């Protein structure tokens, strides 16, 4: 009996000891098969590039530049005077149309959260590339594109929300308590990012599909940014740098402008998959009246002069027998096609002409301004502008921008805002318009979680 007892006790001790020894190794779990550590990602250029290009799909699918109705192409068109909404009253989109945004609005929160998420991803690429052992050339490319993205998102955020934090690194311990900085300082940082990007990136267009930014893309955005802060000579210079690339870019006939292979496109976001077309086309186009979501406002449709090709090829009317409703018809595909025909365009050449026209007019180069403006008018089968004085020319450019760039990434609203015409143009025609609507409210959750961002923008 005793021996058995002893044996059992020995056996128990032994197994207990083995258990304790095997302890630590049992708990070791291998890395999940579907994840890579950040260090590994930036050891190889292909995976580092994947971390970068993923930001572009994210830009296309969520937040500010998303084309599906939640992005600013649609919402700011409703917020300003380009579109009329017949959305379901429960949809938070309707508050854009009625200019009654609440700080809890999902889409407003989305612009902020997705925006800073995209900025985080860009900063992660910048930091990852810097610490990596990639070649200098590879590092240049990664940093250049990431800086461009960072500048791009901050540009939209500052225009929507006013003073905002400029986030240039990934450490959340710092980013969780960031402070808002004055708009002018935000612009300085955006311009610095874009300038550096235009130096780092290649000038020669190696990307046939124009879906990855190069130096010219950075310059095009730089031209716009400089125009927004009234830096006219520099804006004109950057626009010229783009317009001089005649072997790559040229104006197309109106019906071809928004095609995938358009020579007018400076930068576009590739569609979600082979055969997919743009989310803009999908959302805007309707085939029966009354429209399900949104339609173009009468004030916009009636602004076109007779014979303007843009009215006939970029706008389409649908009738229910008595009333005609219009939808943007820049993108013509609302269904997948055998091969993708259209991508979502972010920057295109005609805007550069209009930037330079405006910048030249402000500098007193009225002839040069008219020359650029007429390029755009001729393409729409219109005659030379009758404008003569500086003010007339500036007004003409302003109107041309409305007709040329409608329902594209919020141009109309931003133009009204930067030229101080919001109250004058919207105050009378929009029932819910209020001066404080020039800025969006900061998301409620943001004010809760980061007291440094308080106070809320006026009026909310």
């Amino acid at each position: 009996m005793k021996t058995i007892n002893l044996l059992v006790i020995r056996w128990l001790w032994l197994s207990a000891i083995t258990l304790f020894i095997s302890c630590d190794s049992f708990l070791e779990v291998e890395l999940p098969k579907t994840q890579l550590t950040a260090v590994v990602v930036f050891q190889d250029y292909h995976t580092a590039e994947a971390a970068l290009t993923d930001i572009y799909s994210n830009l296309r699918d969520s937040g500010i530049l998303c084309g599906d109705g939640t992005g600013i192409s649609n919402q700011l068109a409703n917020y300003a005077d380009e579109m009329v909404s017949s959305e379901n009253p429960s949809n938070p989109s309707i508050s854009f149309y009625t200019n009654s945004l609440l700080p809890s609005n999902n889409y407003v929160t989305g612009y902020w959260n997705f925006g800073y998420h995209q900025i985080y991803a860009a900063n992660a690429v910048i930091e990852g590339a810097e610490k990596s052992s990639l070649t200098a050339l590879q590092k240049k490319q990664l940093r250049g594109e990431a800086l461009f993205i960072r500048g791009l998102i901050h540009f939209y955020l500052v225009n929507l929300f006013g003073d905002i934090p400029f986030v240039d690194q990934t450490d959340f311990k710092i980013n969780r308590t960031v402070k808002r900085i004055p708009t002018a300082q935000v612009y300085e940082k955006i311009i610095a990012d874009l300038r550096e990007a235009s130096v780092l990136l290649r000038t020669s267009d190696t990307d046939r599909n124009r879906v990855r930014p190069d130096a010219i893309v950075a310059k095009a955005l730089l031209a716009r940014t400089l125009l927004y802060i009234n830096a006219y000579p520099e804006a004109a210079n950057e626009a010229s740098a783009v317009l001089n690339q005649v072997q790559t870019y040229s104006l197309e006939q109106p019906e071809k402008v928004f095609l995938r292979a358009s020579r007018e496109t400076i930068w576009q976001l590739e569609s979600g998959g082979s055969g997919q077309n743009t989310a803009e086309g999908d959302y805007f186009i309707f085939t029966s009246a009354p429209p399900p979501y949104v339609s173009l406002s009468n004030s916009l449709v009636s602004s076109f002069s007779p014979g303007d090709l843009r009215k006939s090829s970029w706008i389409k009317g649908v009738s229910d027998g008595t009333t005609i409703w219009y939808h943007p018809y820049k993108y013509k595909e609302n269904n997948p096609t055998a091969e993708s025909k259209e991508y979502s365009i972010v920057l295109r050449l005609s805007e550069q002409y209009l930037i330079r026209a405006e910048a030249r007019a402000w500098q007193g180069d009225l002839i040069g301004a008219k020359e650029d403006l007429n390029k755009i008018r001729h393409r729409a089968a219109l005659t030379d502008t009758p404008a003569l004085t500086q003010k007339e020319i500036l007004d003409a450019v302003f109107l041309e921008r409305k007709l040329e760039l409608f329902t594209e990434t919020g141009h109309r609203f931003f133009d009204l805002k930067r030229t101080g015409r919001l109250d004058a143009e919207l105050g009378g025609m929009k029932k819910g318009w209020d001066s404080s609507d020039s800025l969006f409210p900061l998301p409620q959750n943001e004010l809760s979680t980061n007291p440094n961002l308080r106070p809320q923008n006026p009026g909310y």
Partner: protein
Amino acid sequence: MNYFSFYKGGKALYCLFFIGFILSFSSSSARNSNRSFSFIFQQHQVQGVITDGNAPLPGVTISVRGRADVNSITDYTGHYSISAGINDTLAVSFIGFKTKLIPVAGRVKVDIDLQYDTTTLQEVRVNAGYYSVKESERTGSIARITSKDIENQPVTNVLATMQGRMAGVSITQTTGVPGGGFDIKIRGQNSLRSGANSPLYIIDGVPYASDPIGSGITNLTFPTLSSPLNSINPNFIESIEVLKDADATSIYGSRGSNGVVLITTKKGKVGKTKFTLTSSTGGGTVTKFMDLMSTSQYLAMRKQAFKNDGLTEYSPWDYDVNGTWDQNRYTDWQKELLGRTAQITDLQGTLSGGSENTQFMLSGSYHSQSTVFPGTFMYKKGGSQFNLNHASDNRKFRLNFSAGVTLQNNDQPSFDFSYDARSLAPNAPRLYNPDGSLNWENSTWTNPLGNLNTEFESKTNDLTAGTAVSYEIIPELIVKANLGYTNLNNSETRIVPSTIYDPAYEVSSERSAIFLNDVKRDSWIAEPQINWKKELGTSTIDILAGATFQSQRSTRLQQSGTGFTSNSLIYDLAAAKVTKVLLSDETLYKYQAFFARVNYKYKQCYILNLTARRDGSSRFGPGKQFANFGAAGLAWLFSNESFFMQNKWLSFGKIRTSYGTTGNDQIGDYQFLDTYSNTGILYNGIPGLAPSRLFNADFGWETNKKLEAALELGFFGDRIFTTVAWYQNRSSNQLAGVPLPGSTGFTSYQANLDAVVQNSGLEFTLRTVNFKGHGFTWTTNLNLTFAENKLLKFPGLESSAYNQQYRIGEPLNIKLLYSFKGVDPQTGLYTFEDLNGDGAVTFPEDRQVAVNLNPQYYGGLQNQFSYKGITLDFLFQFIKQKNRTYPMGTAGMMANQQQRKTDSWSAPGDNAAYQMFSTGYDFPAVMATYSYNESTASVTDASFIRLKNISISYDLPLDLKQTQCRVILQGQNLLTFTKYVDGDPEFTSYGFLPPLKILTAGIQLTF
């Protein structure tokens, strides 16, 4: 096609029944041969009547001592018949009565009177997980319900069966759609992480992962993701024990913080092979609708809104007021969209029996339930459970095997219709055209029934198997091993066919989409244990030591497909033009522990129970993986002291107390790693990689220190039995998904916070036998819980992301709200207190009134009456609480409103309860509505008393010896008394179907 696979499941079930039948025949023939064999030993039939002194007792087991193969059960008249030798002794036993031994002594008629045994309550063995303990000797806090209560309820979720029946356990149903989930909190919310407050579930010794399955891309029908707990079939459960205090939960260490739910399935009993068949059918309807405006009230509101906004013309799309829609039409949309009766069918069969050495039980069940929505949606569930017990002749070797399989097929609309039912204009058009097609009224509205063409389908297969083997090496020393395996497969699909849209929009199947989510989860566990029990004179020592090795692997695959040549191909992903892999991941969770228990009993009076566990979890980074937990429990059975032994009225008295620590590791896997995940999205020909999270390698266990003291008293032979327990749990080193501002790029990250959350409360239970005798019994059970939740400490709360969520000294479940002042008679707008006096009502400065949304007290009152073959059992559940009213948008927009909003301001000087109507253009009105919904005005009394369950059963007085037939009528949520204004008071989030009121009738046959 979709029904096909389940049809197969159904077939399996019928096979099971068939096998059951065959088995029952085989064993009855075996019994017959046995009988003829036993005649050799000069057997004769003994018969008689068994009574409780007054009335006959049906269902009493009579056996012959020392002869496991011979036994009998009394019929409805209390009559029995058994073959026994003239010198044999009959053993008569029945729950609630003292077992009696009666020598046959050559008689052929033996009538027996049984005495009530009120103290059996103390003898009940309570499952404490790794060990079991006699009710009277337990040192920990354990609540328990048994199959008797579970079987009375026509419900399909195991948590539903516990509602209102256990002190300290608060359960809320989150949706009335079948297959939905429940929210459970055992002794309150311990963790700041909202998803980390679920208890540990253990089925027959095997941990069952309750983490949600399913995905937000496929499941939009429920307010929460699908819960795997629906796979547990209440009908197969023998008992549910909920472990609450440190003494009971510390042995579960890191997983015991939120309590442990132990589920024990039914086992076979020694005796003749029995076959029980239960079938029931019934219906369910919504308990309570909201009071909404009629058409005239609604149109008056709309017209007033236009007037208030200074709009003189209706726009072309104000269809409700501009004459496009019939101004006299009225539809009660709640009745139309939620007013059907859900059909419920339930079928169960059980075969059980066994010899002294081996017992078995095989059960099968099938349940189907349609919905209250329009359309033909159906929830189907079928399963089978097998249990086998074996002991060797010398009782040294024991084996227990149990395995359960559940198949579920849930077919629901993609969206709950509740939202539409409450917001559609009452004069909105009819749903169908005369030809039966959906009416889109010339594209002037979105027909809610477009939703019928979408479909959310969830299929779950679940297997749980557990084996416990033990061997007594030497007397008093037992080695034991628990082995378990679980396997869960869930596949969900949601289709969005082009037919959900107005046909006028000519949306083609090119736009149709399907979303798929597949979850596979399997785990194994091995727990070697050793148990030594020794009696040393007047004391007993019981030592248990063991180890746990557990591993769980989960994989998820989410896909989408869009663009089909035809909608009939929508379920074929290969037919989609564009397919995407939205998520593909695999996680591994490993867990390891050593545990021990020492129980020391002295003179049947003093009991000391020590438990400890050392836990390691792969969810933490290197250096943070291990932690120790332990507890001590002490009980003094003062009624066993000599000075109390003579007491006539006090039959039981115990004081117990416990203190110890438990932990929590519910944070998800790999959170400490800095990684990139594959997004599956191509851009420029490159599949994308995205940062997975903001990583933090430096987080560890959340610890919960639990303290409890309780007094248990039994009076008059335990006819009155009461427990009063006080507890205080403090959860510290909070493991939280700390919310972050969006400027960090993410909305949260994992970390420990130096915050302390305290849950304290008083739990009171009372069981009384009010009347007993003359065949009539009346018992009452009451449980009552007063609970308080408090944030004790949170350094840096002011500057943290939680600064608008919590307040020190207040519960976690508070809302910070504006203080509502009423409607300004001049402006007609809601006004709020300007707390900081800066002249404007602003967030967050003026939204600072903390309102507690935790229940103040809750409980249940159960009464059971039985007279002869009739049993009536009913349970009232009650909760004293506040909750939020249903937030509607700005009144005056094109959506219906609560009827009470008719009392609105319309001209200066009006004193109205609600502000002026607006079409949504008046921003101050929109903003004021928003603030109103975030103000104290949105909080209202949501207390309720509910007839949670009622069950009536009647044993038909059939004159068939071996057959019992019982008729059963069961109801759930039949009556609700509440002051809550917006529908049913039981909900966790707005806009979902409330719990249903269910009534079923059934019949049970045993032979």
